[in-house]
């Protein structure tokens, strides 16, 4: 079993006197993909990343045992992770008034927080205001892809043509058939693990070998099948067979490390943007990368009204610098790209660049979380120990609501993510103490199973972010003010989610130990979407189907902000497929001199 260890490319000084073909802002799933595709077309590309390049292997140390860490993986005592309770009773900016030296979002409250503390932002430096929102951000090369949950799902025409299906919102300006070849390319270039199920609403990918199911999951798969539903092995954005074309990424060796911590894979079997996209792009010699470069605004040529580049602050010196490009590609994450558009207010674009529709910041959508269920399988209690967590994820139960039969209480749907079996950290929620408690923990350790829902949040114009008129971040840049709340459809959907979760376990004969019905704080899914949506009508949308600004034709916004609706399926793979398609279009137009 060989782990690949290629040295990352060195980063030379960047000559900002050059005018690049494209300047990309952000290096996560979208920015990395834009860098890959544009350089593959022979373009000279500058990629700006606000955070540092971290040596991820040294940060993540995926296989370090808890007892080999002085705090068993916990952050220093002076650092604090926000809790669900704090998100519930406090209001943003969350760090304000808290005594800790460092304050992080809730993901740092999971196990092994010391390994990811340098990847995520300190809330003190990066405040926001307005309504309650659990906003998770990673500011480093690769962004959230370094610690993402890895569930890699396709959307279908149930999503792209959702309005045609149920009358709500807008259809996407493209169909599954348009995106399918790009999903294929993403699958083959980055690697994806899964098992084909032939579902119209969750199209199969070009899978590498699937992970396997634990006994409790086999039981649940059989039980669900009796009602025409599906439990499938976690479709993970992880290469399980390896990638011959990528020398930075090893195949998955089932270490299970990605589930014990906030996330992350120090052998890069799980996709991350640096090793999956950016380092190979650097190897072409056509990509220039500048980290510590905090984008401040998109500049506009006063003569032509076109985007001319990006003004950014150097994180070390604080100096304001400018990068120039024939095309500007925003990929800073849904809400950061939106913020950047709103911050860019040349005379031609008084409401923010590309915002003649007034829709930038609006139609904010995501996934709602909270309802779920935990339990155990009686027949598995006390059985000899087996290896159950040697895989990058457990299982997924695809959407089963509002497909061919319509419900009257809510539209759209939800899926469940779950897992089961023995893990490094056992279930210890039982009451009591002493030998009986210890025996119970031991005997239950391999018998537990749990799952939680991810539901589609409808895009609504009134759910929005805007610039706060007063508050600024550590760099003096105005921050976002949230005005975002779940609506009645989400609440009714979650009531059904909670009920169906219980029914699914009951029908499978799984003993339920915990059934949750409460909705978690907005933002919890870390799937912000929709605030610069695509559409055919420039009056009601920001971008066309190629993520190109209706107003400024050499400005592209290639991250989740372009999504027209949230689907209930996780967005990362769709972000990358859309970005690939748009960058093919961008390169062709640029080649023809049309941008």
């Amino acid at each position: 079993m060989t782990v690949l260890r290629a040295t990352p490319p060195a980063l030379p000084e960047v000559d900002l006197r050059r005018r690049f073909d494209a300047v990309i802002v952000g290096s996560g799933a979208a920015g990395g993909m834009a860098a890959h595709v544009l350089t593959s077309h022979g373009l000279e590309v500058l990629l700006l990343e606000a955070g540092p390049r971290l040596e991820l292997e040294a940060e993540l140390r995926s296989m370090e045992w808890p007892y080999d860490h002085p705090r068993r993986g916990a952050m220093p005592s002076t650092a604090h992770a926000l809790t669900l309770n704090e998100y519930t009773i406090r209001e943003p900016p969350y760090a304000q008034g808290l005594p800790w030296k460092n304050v992080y979002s809730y993901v740092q409250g999971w196990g092994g927080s010391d390994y990811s503390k340098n990847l995520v932002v300190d809330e003190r430096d990066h405040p926001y205001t307005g309504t309650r929102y659990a906003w998770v951000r990673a500011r480093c090369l690769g962004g959230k892809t370094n610690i993402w949950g890895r569930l890699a799902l396709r959307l279908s025409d149930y999503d792209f043509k959702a309005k045609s299906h149920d009358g709500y919102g807008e259809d996407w300006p493209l169909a599954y058939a348009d995106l399918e070849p790009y999903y294929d390319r993403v699958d083959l270039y980055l690697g994806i693990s899964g098992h084909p199920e032939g579902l119209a609403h969750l199209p199969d990918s070009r899978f590498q070998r699937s992970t396997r199911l634990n006994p409790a999951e086999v039981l649940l798969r059989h039980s669900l099948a009796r009602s025409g539903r599906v439990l499938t092995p976690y479709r993970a954005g992880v290469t399980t067979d390896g990638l011959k074309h990528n020398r930075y990424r090893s195949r998955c060796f089932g270490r299970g490390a990605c589930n014990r911590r906030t996330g992350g894979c120090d052998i890069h079997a799980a996709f991350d943007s640096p090793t999956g996209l950016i380092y190979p792009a650097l190897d072409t010699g056509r990509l220039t990368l500048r980290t510590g470069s905090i984008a401040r605004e998109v500049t506009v040529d006063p003569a032509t009204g076109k985007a001319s580049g990006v003004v950014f602050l150097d994180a070390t010196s604080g100096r304001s610098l400018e990068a120039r490009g024939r095309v500007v590609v925003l990929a800073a994450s849904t809400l950061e790209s939106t913020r950047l558009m709103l911050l860019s207010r040349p005379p031609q674009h008084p409401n923010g660049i590309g915002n003649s529709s007034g829709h930038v910041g609006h139609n904010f959508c995501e996934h709602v979380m909270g309802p779920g269920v935990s339990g155990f399988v009686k027949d598995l209690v006390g059985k000899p120990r087996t290896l159950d967590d040697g895989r990058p994820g457990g299982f997924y139960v695809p959407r089963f609501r509002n497909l061919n039969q319509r419900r009257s209480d809510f539209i759209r749907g939800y899926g469940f993510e779950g897992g089961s079996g023995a893990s490094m950290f056992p279930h210890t929620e039982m009451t009591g103490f002493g030998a009986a408690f210890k025996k119970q923990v031991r005997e239950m350790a391999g018998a537990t199973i749990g799952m939680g829902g991810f539901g589609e949040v409808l895009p609504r114009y009134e759910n929005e972010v805007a610039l706060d008129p007063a508050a600024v971040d550590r760099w003096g840049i105005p921050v976002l003010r949230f005005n975002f709340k779940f609506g009645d459809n989400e609440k009714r959907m979650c009531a059904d989610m909670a009920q169906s979760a219980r029914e699914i376990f009951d029908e499978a004969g799984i003993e339920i130990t915990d059934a949750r019905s409460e909705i978690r704080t907005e933002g919890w899914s870390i799937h912000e979407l929709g605030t610069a949506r695509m559409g055919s009508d420039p009056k009601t949308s920001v971008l066309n189907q190629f993520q190109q600004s209706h107003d400024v034709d050499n400005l592209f916004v290639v991250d989740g902000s372009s999504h027209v609706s949230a689907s209930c399926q996780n967005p990362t793979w769709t972000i990358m497929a859309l970005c690939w398609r748009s960058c093919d279009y961008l390169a062709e137009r640029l080649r023809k001199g049309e941008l």
Partner: protein
Amino acid sequence: MTITRRHLLRLAAGAAAAPLLPPAAQARGPLPGGRFFDATELALLDELTEAILPADAHSGGAHAAGVAAYIDGRLAEYDPELPPLRAERAAWKDGLAAVDALCRASSQQGFLEASPEQRRRLLEALAAAEQEPHSDAEKFFVQLKDWTVHGYYTSRLGIHDELEYQGNTMLAEFVGADPAALPPKGGPR
């Protein structure tokens, strides 16, 4: 009140603590103080953690896993300049004193001198309120159990001896049931 109790504990530590220990503790030899707790507090914490997760026929308990020393080390590194950390440190000292005082009230002896039966009755009373703790001692029990569980199941002994955890290793093949061998496929309804 709590200051007095803590004071008494310290006095006990300063005097001859060892002869007062029950035989099991004496067998382990004289107990040094910790980095945060004094010798008597650390002895009390060690006994309490062992009572929560005891040695049994299957594996060692919290004592063998070094749980008290782990908790002591973590608390020693708490920055006392930060009010919540200062408060948590105080809660540990007060909590230990409260348990000891409760034991004296019910059995006329401190926890370290109490019989196994007296200890069991005391902890059962505290554990009965685990879901809804009210008194300081009950709240402390929840905190104590939480940290004992964390310290034990992240220890070498807890992971390997007690749970016989098999993972965190390199696999040539994934283990479990092959989904291709399982029925059936579903579809939209």
